[in-house]
């Protein structure tokens, strides 16, 4: 493990295990402290799985948004209860520690197979590694980010639900779930050029 800080990996992996064990504590109201996902590995992952046309700014924005989203996550928070049901439910355990361990595992694999950190691999190799991992996910639809078992799916799911992603897909300024003038809803959303 020449290019990898093994101690950091082990520490993170241990943290993930501890977090899993203390999920019950979180449910009792204890805050769960989690480190941000390693920025350089996350960026390398994002470059491998997000559409190229986002450009470097768009990819960086998606990663930053994902990190911010993750930092704000609260396990065991009461979820919205719908009409007609007496059942209450709560958000699941914090996905951060597990995802951090997956990033470390990517680095470990990259180091063992190619002798470098994940971020130093070519985009093609990074994509191949991630495609193999994502292929294990037996889902067709993107889940809610917090339900994603793998961090790569979590990032994709997070990005896909942003207004920016919808606008890019439709190449139109729809801006779902954002405050905008009521009167303008009668008009076709403005076309976004070059997007």
């Amino acid at each position, binding site marked *: 493990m020449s290019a990898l800080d093994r101690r950091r990996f082990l520490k993170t992996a241990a943290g993930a295990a501890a977090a899993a064990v203390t999920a019950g504590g979180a449910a009792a109201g204890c805050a769960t402290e989690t480190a941000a996902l390693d920025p350089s590995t996350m960026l390398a992952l994002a470059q*491998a799985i997000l559409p190229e046309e986002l450009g470097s700014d768009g990819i960086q924005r998606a990663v930053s948004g994902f990190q911010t989203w993750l930092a704000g996550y609260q396990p065991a928070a009461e979820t919205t209860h719908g*009409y*007609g049901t007496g059942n209450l439910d709560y958000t699941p355990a914090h996905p951060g520690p597990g995802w951090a361990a997956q990033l470390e595992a990517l680095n470990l694999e990259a180091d063992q197979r190619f002798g470098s950190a994940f971020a130093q691999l070519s985009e093609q190799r990074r994509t191949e590694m991630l495609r193999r991992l994502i292929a294990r996910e037996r889902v067709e639809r993107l889940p809610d980010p917090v339900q994603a078992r793998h961090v790569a799916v979590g990032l994709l799911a997070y990005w896909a639900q942003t207004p920016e992603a919808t606008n890019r897909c439709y190449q139109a300024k*729809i801006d779902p*779930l954002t405050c905008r*003038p009521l009167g303008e809803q009668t008009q076709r959303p403005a076309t976004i050029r070059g997007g």
Partner: protein
Amino acid sequence: MTTVVESDVCIIGSGITAALLAEKLSEERDAKIVVVEAGDDVPRLAQRSRLRQRSIDYGENPWPHDHLDGYEVDGIQSRSMCVGGLAMHWGGVTPRFTPEDFRAKSLYGVGDDWPISYEDLEPFYQEAEERMGVAGEQGPPEADGPRSKPYPQPALPLTYNLELLKPWGEEIAPFWSQPSAKNSVPYRGRAVCCRNDTCSPICPVGAKYSPDFTWNALRAAGKVELVTRTLVRRLELVRGADRISHAVAVHRDRPDEPVEFHAKTFVLAAGYVWSPHLLLLSANDRFPTGLANRTGLVGRYMNGHRNVSAFVRLPLKLYPGMNGQHSLMSHRFMRPGRLARYVRHDLRIWESSVGAEPRLRDDAGRVLLGNDLLADWRRRTGRGTARVRAYYDVLPHRESTVTLDADRRNPWRDPLPKITLRDSDESAALRAHTEETIKQLFQRMASAGNGELVQPPRADNFQDHPGGGCRMGTDAQSGVCDRFGRTFDHENLFVVGAPTAVTGSCCNATLTFVALGLMAGGGIGRDLPTVRRAM
């Protein structure tokens, strides 16, 4: 030591019917009004953008502490118990019932006629719309109930998507902008809708009417006293008489200090479950099966409506996300004329992204990443999707009930309610025919637009917008209360709103519940002095 709170009118419950009834009474009558609510106050408007964002980002409940612990009830029962009640979550959709709802027996030979007509209720529909601020437009007469005055606000404009879908829908029936308690113009100090598109569960700008606005205004003006975190456990009679003397309550923070609410008039406005539940809990020697229950009708004829829904792919380029909670609406099939077999339903159309969501695998099961994922997503948005849904009329059985659950108790050891909805025999016999009729309608709609159903239509077993449990009637043999909500057994006890509904119709029912409550206001206020206006 027992705390005694005295008033002229004690309203139990603080949901939407209670709020607008209290507003009306406070304007028209010179009376001390006390409102008792078991739940907490709700977060202020300024906090709602943040709460909404967390709801979007993480699925968190945007109304923290909006329920009581230990209230896991068996049956269809929403959990909200807070100031404003379930209408803090509501979608703000406010159609009226049609005249046919009130005369089902006379017109179609099924169910029961109400003791009131649409025409009796019409002025109170208008009043409810004006108090909430409903934006709407009148549909054509063959497809919409009559109205005596225009809506208080212009209709919410149709989105670009709905404008495209309207001609398609009108191959089948006339459609128009769904009436909504959402501001299309500034109204009573509240902002215009800005398409945040989270009306249910939370509007962050106050464009959607919710009862907290009314309560805040009434409290600020000193017109009502609203006592929160206080659960009414039973009603007690005047010794040797049938009048209600007081309500016995418990403050959740001081359970060892009894609270009693003494009043000349009591108004039960606690919704379709908790209203009959309290009457059943209040059984005594004179009324051994519960108050207002001499003829055994409390907790019976619980009603609502089921739905059938589908997604239709159409050769239209739509842009879902423009305002997904707004819809086209038609009541054409609520006014069907003569029928060989009774089927009545509403019909609504929404934009949808179903069938065009981003996905992780293509049809061949290949993992999609990066450019491939976006290209696949983009390709599938070339055609648009419409969501269609029809609520259909379910007539209630006498044995469609709220009862006291022998196995479940609340933290104060009172039996919890048990809700068992049941179709009348005629409705049960019609169910398959009704659902098949609607499924065929959806198939016709798809064909009319050169489209196809994304998947087979789905019939839901859930009954929405429940009501009943204290149905109104012409006498004690047919109802728990009269048209004004006055119980036949207790001259100073009224039940208002959802519990008094005879049937659930086949469209969103909240406006009707409120209109019934405002109509009851006339009876409740009759014995109270009128407000003296300054000269």
